[in-house]
């Protein structure tokens, strides 16, 4: 029972006009070594806040208010920035949703890839440059030597995301956090990037935390999945179990709206209604306003995460009784 990453009771708030308001609340999950964990949910449900909390890269108006983040048994919450910097880019690497803007426009590709090696491994300019070329080859970029000498604006979105992956892989991280790595790319490129991540994971025994709004991607890539809604985990379990027996009405809604391959670009939208904003969180179940099964109890009391089976939980009163008919 020593997971690579163990998040418990994580609550992260942002300073707003009405004081600190939680964007995610009491989030619990773990990632085992070599495992790919999917985190899914609609826009604004707190996926990025969760990953930035782990990296301790929240914007200055955000802070972790409660909870613990254990990485290899080490507490990251409250860790000094100097110690956290030794972990970032080294043990935990991250890639982002926006490949077009995530690379520094005024530095050459090779320099940007080699940077974490200079920071963490003390390599000099030539060594890190050479290693950068190797990494470009690793992520399948043709003419790696030439590309290392290019500036980012000469590359397409898909190429840039490969470069981001090369940056992330530089120090052989134990955990790769990928925040919607393919959302901004077109479908064929999406598939290539996912293939690349799968290949790298297999070669390097790394764990992946894959954030997506696309359950189709989860089915292809992940071992387990955490479904988030309005800042809370509403269901989690093995991918197989969740696809076979989705329990939370929100998960059921997501599953019935998996876009087909051709229009995976589109955000999930088939569940009517909107995610409540952090300023106006309802007292009871946060999904009640959109839930076809909502009762008075749902509006009054918030359910906790209830066990469906040993490794499968859902935050819904229906679990108590009989499970939901799909």
């Amino acid at each position: 029972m020593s997971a690579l990453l163990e998040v418990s009771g994580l609550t992260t708030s942002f300073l707003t006009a009405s004081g600190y308001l939680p964007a995610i609340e009491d989030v619990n999950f773990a990632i085992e070594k070599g495992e790919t964990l999917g985190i899914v949910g609609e826009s604004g449900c707190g996926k990025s806040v969760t990953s930035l909390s782990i990296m301790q890269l929240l914007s200055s108006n955000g802070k972790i208010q409660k909870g613990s983040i254990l990485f290899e048994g080490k507490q990251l919450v409250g860790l000094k920035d100097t110690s956290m910097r030794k972990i970032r880019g080294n043990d935990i690497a991250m890639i982002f949703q926006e490949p077009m803007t995530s690379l520094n426009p005024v530095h050459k590709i090779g320099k940007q890839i080699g940077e974490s090696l200079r920071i963490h491994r003390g390599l000099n300019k030539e060594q890190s440059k050479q290693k950068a070329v190797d990494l470009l080859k690793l992520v399948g970029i043709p003419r790696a030597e030439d590309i290392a000498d290019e500036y980012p604006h000469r590359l397409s979105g898909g190429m840039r995301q490969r470069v981001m992956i090369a940056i992330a892989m530089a120090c052989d991280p134990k955990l790769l956090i990928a925040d919607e790595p393919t959302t901004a790319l077109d479908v064929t490129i999406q598939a290539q990037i996912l293939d690349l991540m799968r290949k790298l994971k297999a070669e390097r025994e790394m764990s992946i935390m894959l954030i997506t709004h696309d359950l189709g991607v989860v089915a292809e890539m992940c071992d387990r999945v955490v479904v988030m809604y309005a800042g809370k985990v509403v269901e989690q379990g093995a991918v197989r179990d969740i696809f076979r027996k989705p329990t939370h009405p929100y998960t059921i809604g997501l599953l019935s709206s998996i876009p087909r391959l051709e229009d995976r670009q589109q955000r999930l939208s088939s569940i009517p209604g909107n995610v409540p904003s952090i300023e106006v969180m309802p007292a009871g179940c946060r999904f009640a306003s959109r839930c076809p099964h909502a009762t008075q109890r749902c509006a009054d009391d918030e359910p906790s995460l209830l066990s469906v089976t040993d490794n499968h939980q859902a935050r819904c009163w229906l679990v108590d009784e009989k499970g939901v008919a799909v």
Partner: protein
Amino acid sequence: MISYIIRRLGGAVIVLLGISIITFVIAFLVPANPARAIVGPHAPEALVLQVDKQLGLDQPLPIRYVNYMNNLVHGNLGMSYVLDQPVTNLIEQRVGATAQLALAAWVLELVIGIPLGIISAVYDRKIIDHIASLLALIGISLPVFFVGLELMYWIGFRLNWLPVGGTGGFNYIILPGLTYAITGAAYYSRLLKASMLDVLSSDYIRTAKAKGASPARVIFAHALRNGIIPALTYGGIDIAALFGGVVVIEDVFGYSGLGQLAVQAISNLDVPVIMGTVLFATAFVVLVNVVVDVLYGIVDPRITYS
């Protein structure tokens, strides 16, 4: 890139032509006669007419302009009406002093403005940013002559650290340079603060942090080179403004540079000197702007010259 520079220099020639016409026309449209100014208000009309003829002022304006330009391309800017010396000599004697002063002013401006801007951005809305912003606001609001006189009084006169005015070595350019810098640095600091704030919240800065880069590395290796681009544009404009500013400052500090030469020429209606200094300043400003545009491409690889 070479062809770009050549094209830009071609454009510069056109700008110079335009400025020369405008200056020429304005200088001679003033409802006062240079010849009268030279001989004095009580001299007889006949003498005025004689001087007119001597200076070629009896000819029509377009002819005078063509003659002037013809001399100009042969490197001859004419004789000063008043100082009895070739204008090129006058400019040559003064240009070094003004260049030193302008350079000192500009460097001091950057030395004050850039760190202030970086600090304000990094400590955005913290007390140190408020102090920096307040200082910047004070600097912007104060008139040049006031700052100049205060510095003269306190540092020059009361503390007796530096000469109060005049022209000489390095010591003589510090106070006038500082005067310009205090009133101008705030533009750089504000500009830099805004662009650095923008850059610091950008995705690629997050990427740098995610690599484990230290705050110093994030600011200096990643943010500054992007954040400095707007300041670079302003630098080009500022150098033009610098010439105007230096005129006032030279006057306040009794510093004999081109500015002072120009001011005296204007009050004497010494048209060849007016023309010479204006054209010289224009040529310089245009050249600086070409240099700035080339620098752009070095700082920002996304810019191509076409």
